């Protein structure tokens, strides 16, 4: 079941995320010196309980590599950058110029992914914060490997079925395309708050 969101609000959310992602791409270019393009082709809004139905291949996987930052403000939740582990490793190797044949991430690679996640999450949430004139306080990024539902469950308190904004991202680096997903897991009641802010901005 997808939440009924009017086209204007959906466009506004997509635009805010796109601005943030564009900014993140610029920063990643500066840091790594390689040409990185970041795109968000579409966004979806679904209750967390139905996320596995959105993309069984990704969200149904046993293990996902995730960088998470909690945020608190007028509406609260967690923002996560989610990858299948192979993609996370490929991304880190491409960005850091390593050619590790490893199949598991080591501590330094985890750190690197945390910084990449921090850059993208800050840029996306910074964009939302600027456009909606909302203020959020963020935690430091945390790396987590596990099933998506258990990741979200760790960060969502209370009863109910919180909503998730899913933004599939494509990293285009050196002719390689790596897919990741930005998830905005909103606490119960926060989705309504976000929609109010978006509609207020849209006038």
């Amino acid at each position, binding site marked *: 079941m997808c939440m009924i969101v009017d086209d204007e609000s959906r466009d506004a959310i997509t635009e805010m995320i796109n601005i943030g992602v564009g900014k993140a791409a610029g920063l990643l270019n500066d840091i*790594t010196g390689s040409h990185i393009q970041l795109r968000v082709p579409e966004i979806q809004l679904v209750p967390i309980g139905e996320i596995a139905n959105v993309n069984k291949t990704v969200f149904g996987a046993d293990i996902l590599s995730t960088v998470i930052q909690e945020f608190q403000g007028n509406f609260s939740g967690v923002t996560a950058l989610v990858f299948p582990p192979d993609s996370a490793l490929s991304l880190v190797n491409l960005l850091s110029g390593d050619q590790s044949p490893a199949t598991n991430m*080591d501590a*330094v690679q985890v750190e690197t992914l945390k910084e990449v996640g921090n850059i993208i999450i800050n840029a996306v*949430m910074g964009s939302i914060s600027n456009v909606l004139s909302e203020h959020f306080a963020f935690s*430091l*990024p945390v790396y987590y490997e596990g099933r998506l539902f258990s990741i979200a469950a760790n960060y969502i308190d209370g009863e109910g079925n919180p909503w998730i904004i899913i933004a599939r991202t494509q990293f285009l680096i050196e002719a390689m395309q790596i897919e990741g997903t930005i998830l905005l897991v909103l606490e119960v009641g926060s989705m309504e708050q976000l929609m109010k802010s978006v509609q207020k901005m849209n006038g």
Partner: protein
Amino acid sequence: MISTECLALLDMLPSGIVIIRKDFSILFWNRCMEEWTGIKKGNILGKNLLLESPTLNQPSITTRLPQVFEGNSPVYLSSKFHPHLITSLLPDGTSRIQRGAVLPVRLGGDEVDAMLVIEDVTDLSHQVTGFQKMRDIARRELAERKKAEEALQIANAKLSLFSEITLQDIRNQLTAARGYNYLISHSLNDSSGIQSAAGKIDHQLSLIEKYISLMLDFEQLGKEPPQWYSLRQVIKRAMVQTQFFQVTSGPEIEDLGIYCPPLLERIFTNFLENAKEHGKTVTQVKISFSPRGDAGILTIEDDGVGVPTEDKEHIFGEGLGTKTRLTLYHTREVLAITGISIRETGVMGKGARFEIVIPKDGYLFRKALPEERPKEPE
């Protein structure tokens, strides 16, 4: 809000902690920072952190700091992208590897300041690097072992085939010897006839001896996996073995190693013997090497009469050669075990020219001691 007690606590932490204002002036510099940089609090408070520490004054960091001062989000700085946030040398003269985070803090009032927390991850980084190296070595050794095992399997299959052929040759000689022996025992009465038959038996026994010697050579194939050979050493030994010293080789041969089954020396000995025997007018043999595409080409050429065009493939046939030593058929089969191929590309009248095509992972250049087995490239 950070209290005075809290600042005192920050002073005791084993991480570097610096608090700066929006204009990057330093408000707090903890004891760990004093130890790491050798700069005392009194000498740095109030100064601009970006000017004092140019390693922090990078767009990849400075463009992200405004969001900290807006009170929004912490900035995470990994050791991969920013290994040296502040200049800090270890007792051995190397730079401390660091990772950090910049967090929004309020020391009082509405102003948001930024707290830079730096961790020393030198040991962790070295451990990870050490682990990566060990893992890469183990992976390489495993791949090498797998390759050797596969080659050994192929070698054993070829060994059976070679042995079968040679055993058949031995049987043939034995049958002939038995025939002569029968003649001696039953038919021949004159001593000259007996002597002639005995001479033939002796010749057959000598052939059998050579076949057995050849089989012993083949046995090496099944016993030892392929290994890296210094070509310079192989050529040198083949020259001594054949007593043929008119061999010239280019400087590229000096450090060349070839991954090959354990008959390479015999193969080179045969090349030189063939040049002596079949080349007729051969005065010298030239050996050279050059990389070409995904392979390396080792060329062995002489200035003899050469091989007729119609025989270029035929010379690698199973039935050709003296059969008492390695033939070109054996040479092609043995080299194929490690993916090496051979063909004759010379011009009749100008000399024979053998091109040995070695796959990219089957050769390397490495300065190696004469007896040292060169290792695979890292």
